[in-house]
């Protein structure tokens, strides 16, 4: 599934990769692969091992948590250019906190998390750009979670 020229092309179109120098972009490409997914296809399971961080290129990926007695609850959907599975890049987490499955047919880019972590360690300039980007993603995701938590559309008690 790896096709380097194709991957570079795709990555180059993603806005935040455009901030990378050609050298850094090359490094990223070496850790990345394109993957086509079919509706319903599972990318990773809750509790699974950390392996890739993903970017949606086409389609939609749903993030689900399984709650005993309630079943699978979809907490978020990643749309084109959304990053998901980012917790695998952070040093502290050890397993997936949610599962990811394609909602409709699509294409994703997967980046090897272990290699990404190592490269960030070895090249701090590269690491800074990656971490800064991840921080933005995490903070906006946190805001979404907060708004979901306060239940904006809660029906008022009369």
């Amino acid at each position, binding site marked *: 599934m790896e096709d380097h020229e194709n991957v570079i092309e795709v990555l180059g179109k993603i806005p935040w990769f455009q901030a990378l120098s050609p050298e850094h972009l090359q490094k990223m490409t070496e850790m990345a692969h394109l993957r086509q997914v079919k509706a319903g296809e599972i990318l990773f399971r809750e509790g699974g091992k950390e392996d890739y961080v993903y970017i949606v290129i086409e389609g*939609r990926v749903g993030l689900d948590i399984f709650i005993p007695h309630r079943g699978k609850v979809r907490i*978020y*959907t990643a*749309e084109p250019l959304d990053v998901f599975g980012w917790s695998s890049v952070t040093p502290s987490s050890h397993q997936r906190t949610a599962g990811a499955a394609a909602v409709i047919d699509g294409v994703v880019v997967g980046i090897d998390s272990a290699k990404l972590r190592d490269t960030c360690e070895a090249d701090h300039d590269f690491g800074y750009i990656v971490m800064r980007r991840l921080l933005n993603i995490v903070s906006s995701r946190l805001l*979404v979670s907060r708004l*979901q938590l306060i239940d904006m*559309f809660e029906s*008022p008690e*009369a």
Partner: protein
Amino acid sequence: MTISNVPVQTTTLQSGILLDPQWAEVTAITPEAEGISTYWLRFVNPAEQHAFRFEPGQVNMLYLPGFGESAISISSDPQDHEKLGHTIRFVGNVTRAVSRLKVGDVVGLRGPFGTHWPMQEIEGKDVFIACGGIGLPPLRPAIYHIVRNREKYGKVTLLYGARTSSDLMFPHEYDEWRKAQIDVEITVDRGDTNWNGRVGVVPMWFYHFRIDPRKTAVLTCGPEIMIRFVIFEAMARRVPEESIYVSLERNMKCGQGSCGHCQIGPYFICREGPVFRFDDLQSFFNIEEF
């Protein structure tokens, strides 16, 4: 403070003044979602029905004798002169009494009150409608207007969200609107097994749309907390305050700018609202408990 030796006059307001209701009959009831239905009303007096005109965003006061009045946004097509749609959520005394109405019942109606969506002022611009929950009904007349006058507007997007997929309002109309070249994007706060669409809150989807701040008007309505974040996102994309329009809700009683209840800062929502241009509202918005 009753005065003992000054005779207490039981005085009545002369009729014809706006506080007197006109009468309208319930012609149909459309259940929309849990606890929300649209009541279709037609004035009992046909002359009154044919004379009644309203602009998208305006409000009527529904009167149930003995129970009281409730301010309800008109959610139907302004060009439909046969009937008026009022989408009502059953939360208070009056609206719960409304939920017991049947087709054929007669209610009091007065209006329309307040300001409206600036459909003329935003001609030629891209229109970005961001709303949620019960915020879609007051915008529906504006959408109908756009559909009818599509060539007068640029790129039109409707971003609408609700708590869950069963709370979405007017789902059967989305495809009609898409056919009229409106980009309809739906999201829910919580997914469920029936839902293959977006899961996530309305404000955060802004970054998916390319908005040209120089020529986009943003119209928003919904819970005030949602409005707050929609405005935040719109301004983060450099949409100027003068291009953001908000519909607010406060306890409306007289509808005349007289009883004082609906005030927010210097504005009477029944008179200078419910639709505001955000730059006028900015200094009074988002102040805790104001």
